[in-house]
C-alpha cells in the first residue's frame, strides 16, 4: 500500500509540473515579450509581400540589351485590412479616374472571396498617381504600392516577332507548373515563350508588420523568426542577332510587307531576321487592353505571322540556283551547253513564255543565271525530268523545316509522288518546266532560301540556322550542319555566275552592286496566281525576291530579301539586300567610308 501511495504522489507531482511550465511560458509571453507580440495585434497586421524577381534580359550577340526590365508600380489591396469600402473607393476613383461604384463592387468582391490574398487593382500606375496615393495613406488603409518589373524595349519594335511578349499565365500553364501564380506574366510568343524556363526568375517573400495607417512597424524580435526569402533574377538569354543590323533590316521594311533574313554562312547564326508588318511590343509591356488585342488579332495583314519563317511563297527565279545545280550534277548539261531563247518554248502543245517576251537569243549556262532566262531552264527541265529535279529540291532543304529555334513552316517540295498523293493525278511535263523556274506547286520560306544561298556560299554545307547564342546546351558543332551535299566544283561555277548577276553589265541584280565590297546574288520575281478580274490589283502583284551573299570571294553573310507584292526582285529587293550587306560591312569595319 505504501508503494501505491508513493506512485500516486509521484504521478500527481509530475502532472502539476506541466502547469508550472505553463506559468513560466505565460510569464515569457505576457510579461517579458508582451509588447513585442502586441505588434501583431488586430490594429497592426502582418503582410506577406512577394518580392518580384526580374526576368532575364535578352541581349544581342555583342551583349547589347534588346529586352530589359523597368520597375512598375501596382496598387495592391489587402482585403483583410479594408474597413471603410466607401471612403477607399471614393478616393481610388479620384486617383484612377474609374467610376466609384465599379471600385466598390470590386473591393466588396475581394473581401468576400479573397479575404487573405493581396490582390492588385491597378497595374503600372503613373508617378503622379503614385504620389497622390502616398499623400492619402491615411484614407487608403489596406491599400499599398507594390513594385514589380515590366518589360522595356530599348530598341523599340525591332525584332518583335522573334522576341515575343508576355501575358497573364493561362489556366493550363498553372495546372502544369503549380509554382506559377495566377497574376504572373509568362512568355506567350517567340523567345519569351520558348525560353520561359530560363528567363523566369524565382520570387522571394517578405513579411512586414504595418500599423493602422499602413506604416511599417519595426519588429526586431521577429526579424529572425519571420522567414523572408530573397528573390533571384532569371537568367539572361543571348541571341545571335546583331541588333544594329536588325534595326537596319526593320527600318528597310518599314512601310512594306515582307521579310529579311541575314545569316552567318559559316556557323548558321542568324544575324538579323525581320518581318513586317509586325506588332508593337510596347502594347504588351504591362497589360494589353482588350481593344488593342482585337485590333491586332483581326488585322488582315497578319502582324503575328513571322514571314521569314512562317510565310510560304513561290521562290521564282532564285530557285534557278537549284535547277542549275541539279542539271550540272546530273550531267544533263555542262558549262558550255547553249540553248536558243526566242521568248517562248513549246512543250507538247503548250507554249511557255520567257519573262522577256522578246527573247534572249543564244544563252549559255552563265548567261542563263545572269539574265535569268526562263526558256533556258524549260529546256534544262525537259532533259532533267521531274524525278531528278525533285531529289535536289529536297537536298537543298525545301519541303522540310530548317531546324530554326522558332516556329516555322515546311512549305511544299513537289514531286511525282507528292502530286499523286495530294491531287490523285499524274505529273505533266509542263509542270516540270514551271517548277524549274520556281513557280507552280513550289512554296518556300525566306529562311529556306537563305539556307540554300548560304550553302552555295560556303561550298555546299546545308546549315541549321540558330538564333540563341547562350545559354547553349552541350552539343558538338556537327549539330549545326544538317548535311554536306554539294559538289564544290559545281558550286564554284554557280558562284561565278551569281557574282556576274550583280556585277556584270546587264545582270538582273545590278542594283545590288556595292562600292564597298563585292556582292553575289540572284533575283526572283514570283508570280502570284490571280484570276482574270483580279489581275492588276496590288494584292496580286509579283513577290520580289533577292538572295545574296558577300563578300563574293570569301563569303561571310547570306542575305535574303522578300517583298510581298513588291514587283520586280531586281529593282525592289536587291537594293534592300545591298544596304543590309553594306551595314554589315560597316559594323565590321567601322573606319571604312562609303
Amino acid at each position, binding site marked *: 500500500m505504501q508503494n501505491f501511495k508513493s506512485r500516486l504522489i509521484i504521478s500527481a507531482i509530475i502532472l502539476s509540473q506541466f502547469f508550472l511550465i505553463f506559468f513560466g511560458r505565460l510569464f515569457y509571453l505576457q510579461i517579458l515579450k*508582451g509588447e513585442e507580440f502586441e505588434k501583431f495585434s488586430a490594429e497592426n497586421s502582418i503582410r506577406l509581400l512577394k518580392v518580384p524577381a526580374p526576368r532575364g534580359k535578352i541581349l544581342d550577340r555583342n551583349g547589347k540589351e534588346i529586352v530589359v526590365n523597368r520597375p512598375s508600380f501596382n496598387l495592391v489591396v489587402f482585403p483583410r485590412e479594408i474597413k471603410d469600402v466607401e471612403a477607399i473607393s471614393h478616393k481610388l476613383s479620384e486617383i484612377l479616374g474609374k467610376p466609384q461604384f465599379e471600385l466598390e463592387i470590386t473591393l466588396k468582391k475581394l473581401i468576400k472571396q479573397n479575404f487573405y490574398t493581396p490582390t492588385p487593382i491597378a497595374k503600372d500606375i503613373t508617378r503622379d498617381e503614385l504620389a497622390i496615393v502616398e499623400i492619402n495613406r491615411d484614407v487608403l488603409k489596406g491599400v499599398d504600392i507594390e513594385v514589380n518589373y515590366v518589360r522595356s524595349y530599348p530598341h523599340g519594335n525591332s525584332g518583335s516577332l522573334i522576341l515575343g511578349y508576355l501575358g497573364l499565365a493561362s489556366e493550363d500553364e498553372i495546372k502544369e507548373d503549380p509554382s506559377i501564380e495566377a497574376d504572373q506574366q509568362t512568355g506567350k510568343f517567340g523567345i519569351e515563350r520558348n525560353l520561359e524556363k530560363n528567363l523566369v526568375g524565382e520570387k522571394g517573400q517578405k513579411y512586414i508588420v504595418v500599423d493602422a495607417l499602413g506604416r511599417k512597424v519595426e519588429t526586431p524580435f521577429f526579424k529572425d523568426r519571420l522567414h523572408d526569402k530573397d528573390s533571384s533574377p532569371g537568367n539572361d538569354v543571348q541571341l545571335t542577332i546583331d541588333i544594329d543590323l536588325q534595326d537596319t533590316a526593320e527600318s528597310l521594311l518599314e512601310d512594306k510587307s515582307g521579310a529579311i533574313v541575314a545569316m552567318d554562312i559559316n556557323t548558321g547564326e542568324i544575324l538579323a531576321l525581320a518581318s513586317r508588318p509586325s506588332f508593337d511590343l510596347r502594347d504588351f509591356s504591362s497589360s494589353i487592353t482588350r481593344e488593342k488585342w482585337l485590333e491586332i488579332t483581326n488585322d488582315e495583314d497578319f502582324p503575328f505571322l513571322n514571314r521569314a519563317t512562317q510565310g510560304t511563297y513561290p521562290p521564282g527565279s532564285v530557285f534557278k540556283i537549284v535547277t542549275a545545280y541539279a542539271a550540272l550534277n546530273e550531267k544533263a548539261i555542262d558549262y558550255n551547253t547553249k540553248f536558243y531563247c526566242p521568248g517562248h518554248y513549246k512543250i507538247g502543245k503548250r507554249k511557255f513564255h520567257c519573262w522577256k517576251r522578246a527573247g534572249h537569243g543564244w544563252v549559255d549556262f552563265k548567261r542563263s543565271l545572269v539574265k535569268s532566262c526562263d526558256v533556258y531552264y524549260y529546256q534544262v527541265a525537259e532533259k532533267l525530268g521531274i524525278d531528278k529535279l525533285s531529289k535536289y529540291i529536297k537536298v537543298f532543304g525545301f519541303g522540310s523545316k530548317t531546324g530554326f529555334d522558332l516556329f516555322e513552316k515546311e512549305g511544299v517540295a513537289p514531286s511525282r509522288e507528292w502530286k499523286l498523293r495530294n491531287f490523285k493525278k499524274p505529273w505533266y511535263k509542263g509542270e516540270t518546266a514551271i517548277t524549274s523556274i520556281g513557280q507552280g506547286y513550289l512554296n518556300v520560306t525566306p529562311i529556306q532560301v537563305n539556307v540554300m544561298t548560304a550553302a552555295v556560299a560556303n561550298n555546299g554545307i546545308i546549315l541549321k540556322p540558330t538564333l540563341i547564342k547562350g545559354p547553349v546546351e552541350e552539343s558538338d558543332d556537327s549539330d549545326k550542319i544538317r548535311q554536306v551535299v554539294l559538289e564544290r566544283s559545281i558550286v564554284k561555277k554557280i558562284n561565278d555566275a551569281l557574282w556576274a548577276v550583280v556585277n556584270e553589265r546587264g545582270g538582273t541584280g545590278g542594283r545590288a552592286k556595292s562600292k564597298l565590297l563585292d556582292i553575289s546574288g540572284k533575283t526572283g520575281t514570283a508570280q502570284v496566281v490571280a484570276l482574270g478580274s483580279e489581275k492588276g490589283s496590288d494584292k496580286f502583284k509579283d513577290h520580289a525576291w533577292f538572295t545574296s551573299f558577300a563578300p563574293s570571294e570569301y563569303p561571310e553573310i547570306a542575305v535574303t530579301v522578300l517583298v510581298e507584292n513588291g514587283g520586280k526582285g531586281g529593282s525592289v529587293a536587291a537594293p534592300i539586300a545591298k544596304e543590309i550587306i553594306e551595314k554589315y560591312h560597316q559594323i565590321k569595319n567601322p573606319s571604312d567610308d562609303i
Partner: protein
Amino acid sequence: MLRIFDLKNKNFDFLLLSAVLTLASLGILMVYSTSSIFSLENYGDSTHFLKLHSIYLAVAVLALIFFMHLDYKFLRKLTYPSYFFGLVLLILVLIPGIGKEVGGAQRWITFSHFTFQPSEICKYIMVIYLAHSLTKKRERIESFWVGFFSHIFVAGLYIFLIFIEPDFGTSTVLLTLVFLMLFIGNVRLRYLLILGGISVVFAIGAVLTRGYRMDRIVSFLDPWKDPLGSGYQAVQSFVAFGMGGLYGSGLGGSSQKLFFLPQAHTDFIFSIIGEEFGFIGICVVIMLFLIVLFRSIRISLRAPDSFSCYLVFGFIILITLQAGINMGVAVGLLPTKGITLPFISYGGSSLVSTFAAMGIILGISRYADK
C-alpha cells in the same frame, strides 16, 4: 444489499466543489465574450451560444448532483455492461450512415437533435473498467498476463477503435490514462516501460504516415515559417497573450477573438482569457485547476477502498490531461489539437461528462478520511 443512492452523508469536499463552480462561472462569461460576435453574425443573436452553454451547464450541474449522491459501489456493478455499451458505440460510429463524418474524421453519432462523441463517454467508462479490474486483480498484479496484458488488451480495443476514426488526440489521452493507472495500480515498471517504448514508436509512425499530422508538428515547431497559414493560430494566440500583458484588457476587451473564429469559444478560449484577464487572471485559472487536481488527489489518497481510489485518480487524470493539452496548445508548447478546456470551453457532451466525473469524485469525498 445493493444500494444505489446514499443521501444521508453530505460531508463532501466543499473546496473542490467551489473551485469547479468558479471555473464553470468563468466559462459562462468567457463563452459569451468569445462567441457573441460570431453568434450575432451567424445566428442573428449574440447570446446564441451563451443560451446553449447555460442549458448544458444546467444539465451538467444536475448530473453532478446526481452522481454526487450515487453510491460509488453501484458503479462497480456497471463495469462490464458499460464497457460493452461503449464498445458498441465505438463500432457504430464507424458505420457510415450512423456515424457522422466531419472534416474527414468519423467521430460523431447523431441521435435525433442530439449529437455526441462516443469517445467522450468511453474515456470515463475506461476509468471505471480499470479501477474495477486493478482492484480485482490486485493479488496477481505483478504477473505479465494478468496484471499487464489483460488490461492492455481490453483498453487497447477502445484505443484502436478511436484511433481509426481517426482521433489521434483522444487516443493519445486514453493511452496516457491507461499508462498512469497501471502505474499506480502497481503493475511492474518494466512492462510499463515497454508499453511506453512501443507507444512512442507507434505515435511517430502515425505522424509520419499522415501528412496533416506532420504539418501540424512542423508548424508547431516553427509557427513563424508560415504565420499567415499553418502557423496562424499559434501566432495569433501569442498575440492574444501579449495583448493581455499583466492585467489584461478587461472582460469583453479582446480584439484577438476575431482571429480564432470559429474556435475562440472552444479550443482557444484559454488565449482569450489571457488577453482579457492578463497574466494575473490566467494565474488564477491555473491555480483553480491545480486546486481541483490536488484536492482530488487528496481524496484519492484517503479513499475508503482501492476501487474508489483508482476511480478518483483516473477521473482527475483525464480532466487534468485535457486541461494541460488545451493550455499547452494555446501557449505554443504542444502542436494544435482539437481538445477543449474542461469546465470552461463551450460544448455539451464534454461539459456534462466532466461534471458527472466531478460528481463521482465529490461523492467519494464523503467517505474519505478527514
